[in-house]
């Protein structure tokens, strides 16, 4: 008589240390081998899009902060560009430069969380704390600028809420000189660690074809070897004035598009962001950051789709205006949400431990997945 066997269903989350928030993954296991992964989302749903319809345009900005709370600056950035396009206003040069500086600092801070928590997922706690120590410096920079450390409400339609703190430029330069060696340290501690490579190389390989079919963007797409970065390919703000590279995954230790590649793209991007900040600080013009802020924001009837390169990928805002002070509809195309959709494909036939490695390399923020 044959022994009756059945697959085991394992619920990972929503209270699990490494699902990066309140994500529930339903794993169908055959022993320790994954047969199927179903992400269940919605534990953090706050009706962001519906909410927008009842609020005026500037009131929405703090709400965009709360989507991708690790990259709040960039969420504001994308939204504000959209509204400015609707209004058809031009913002002062200084504002654009400060937005780029803040956006790139935010990118470093966000990647530091991604890298640090990824190390912790693989089992190395120390890189996690090192990453948070460095992120703290960036958060202090944000704090002297606008008083907030996570949810800033700093980038406004037509300008900024405050000008830079007098010490900001000096402190940011200090941060750049401080941070460069820390990337090397991180590489020595984690990136080139034999066990780390064993755990991440050739795990969760994402072929380019699949990535494009799933609409994957950001470091995940670049990790699969495609040079696609909206800062260059659909340039916005003043990004076309700077010289920077787009790092892509090369399969240095495994196959192109594995977890290690996705991780390493983030490490390289931090270096590129530092270069961008340096150039922006050098060229930073004088000016008034609040002069172009309109008194009344009431865009004409019409719609606009803007997209920016958020630390996690393409963040798009589709805004329809019906000529009143509130938008008729705001639709967000969130990179985390789209990137999360590929979990099942990536995890198939891997082990339970790899699910954690893969989820960490996707780098989701549940606030933005659920909105």
């Amino acid at each position, binding site marked *: 008589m044959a022994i009756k066997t059945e697959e*085991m269903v*394992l619920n990972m989350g929503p209270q*699990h*240390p*490494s699902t990066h928030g309140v994500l529930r993954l339903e794993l169908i296991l055959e022993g*320790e081998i994954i047969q199927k992964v179903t992400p269940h989302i919605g534990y953090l749903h706050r009706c962001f899009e519906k909410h927008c319809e009842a609020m005026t345009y500037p009131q929405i900005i703090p709400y965009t902060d709360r989507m991708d709370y690790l990259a709040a600056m960039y969420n504001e950035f994308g939204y504000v560009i959209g509204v400015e396009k609707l209004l058809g206003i031009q913002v002062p040069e200084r504002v654009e430069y400060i937005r780029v500086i803040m956006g790139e600092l935010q990118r470093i801070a966000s990647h530091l969380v991604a890298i640090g928590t990824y*190390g*912790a*997922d*693989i*089992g*190395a*706690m*120390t890189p996690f*704390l*090192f990453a948070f*120590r460095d992120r703290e410096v960036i958060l202090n920079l944000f704090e002297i600028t606008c008083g907030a450390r996570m949810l800033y409400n700093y980038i406004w339609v037509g300008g900024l809420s405050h000008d830079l703190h007098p010490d900001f430029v000096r402190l940011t330069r200090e941060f750049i000189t401080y941070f460069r060696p820390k990337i090397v340290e991180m590489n020595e*501690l*984690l990136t080139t*660690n034999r*066990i*780390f490579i*064993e*755990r991440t190389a050739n795990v969760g390989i994402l072929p380019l074809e699949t990535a494009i079919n799933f609409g994957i963007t950001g470091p995940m797409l670049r990790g699969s070897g495609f040079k696609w970065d909206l800062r260059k390919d659909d340039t916005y703000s003043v990004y076309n004035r700077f010289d920077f590279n787009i790092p892509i995954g090369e399969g240095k230790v495994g196959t192109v598009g594995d977890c290690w590649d996705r991780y390493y793209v983030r490490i390289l991007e931090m270096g590129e962001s530092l270069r961008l900040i340096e150039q922006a600080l050098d060229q930073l013009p004088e000016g008034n950051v609040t002069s172009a802020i309109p008194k009344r924001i009431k865009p004409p009837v019409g719609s606009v789709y803007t997209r920016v390169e958020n630390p996690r990928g393409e963040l798009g805002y589709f805004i329809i205006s019906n000529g009143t002070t509130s938008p008729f509809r705001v639709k967000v195309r969130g990179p985390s949400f789209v990137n999360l959709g590929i979990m099942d494909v990536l995890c198939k036939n891997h*082990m*339970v*431990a*790899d*699910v*954690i490695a893969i989820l960490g390399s996707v780098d989701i923020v549940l606030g933005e997945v659920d909105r």
Partner: protein
Amino acid sequence: MIVYDFLYNIVFNITQSAVAGDITAMVISAALPLLFLVLPFAILAVWLERKVSAHMQDRLGPMRTGSHGWLQTIADVIKLLQKEDIVANDNDRPLFNLAPILVFSGSYLVFAALPFSSAYIGSNIDLGIIFIIAASGFVVAGILMAGWSSNNKYSLLGAMRSAAQIVSYEIPTILVILTIIMITGTTNLRTLSEMQTGYFWNWMIFGGAGLSLSKFLFIPFMIIGFVTLYISTLAEVNRTPFDIPEAESELVSGYHTEYSGMKFAMFFMAEYANMFAVSAIVSAIFFGGYQSPFGYLGNTLGLTWMVPIEQFLWFASKGIFFVLVQMWLRWTLPRLRVDQLMALCWKYLIPIAFVNLIIVGLITVL
């Protein structure tokens, strides 16, 4: 064996019975490590781990309770004692209650056979090393019980991994220990330590006592043996990079996820006691046990009573040194995956240990 004789004499004088004296002395002397070594060491090690990890990570660690937080573990133990002992309805109650006891006693039994100094060894049995290996095998049963009775999928996965891991890594451990048994011809840890007396070049890692040709031939194979043994003992006590059974980021806390209060503390203490136990075994086998690397202060001063105390301090510091290395590794390295862990054991450690065994055997015959 001064402690044993002392106890024996007291009981013998009262009861005039050799059997009673023997049994009482043996039981008390074997139980002594629990109160005076296992518990204080566990408390010290938990605090050490927190401070070591904190300083490695640019943090301060516990600072509030006592100077530099040295009372923190005691406060934690008191907190755990007050906690409710939760047993869920679906838990298999007898097994669930038995598991922590088994795990703790398994790691504590090892202490009974450790040679702390020439004056004191919990139980001076001739099969010391074999006893230690057998006793640590107890732990597997306890972990499996904990995983099964918790009725939790994470616990079960953790327990299965743990059992596979500990059983696998016992093989290279035993193979390395066999090479030592082959050279020295003894399984008594006290005799083994006595053989490595004198200066540090008499330690087994340097080929043991004497000045024959085989001593120098042994050295490279002893170093290989030491590294193999150290790696496999790391895996046996579930420390990073082999802490797969309680991989926090995957399995929450593995087999002790469902435990609370003092039962959890027993698993916790067993882990730290085990850390010292395996370090002590490594130092007893390769690093001269309780022997000082260079003479004794007591002998120089003519105070022979000082020698056993010095020996105890040497043994403890060697053990704690290896514990610190374990902590250093834990806070530096990521974690292997379960199949990679098995591959490391079966594809690398066991063949290396086996070839090492054969070569050392050939040298011994020569």
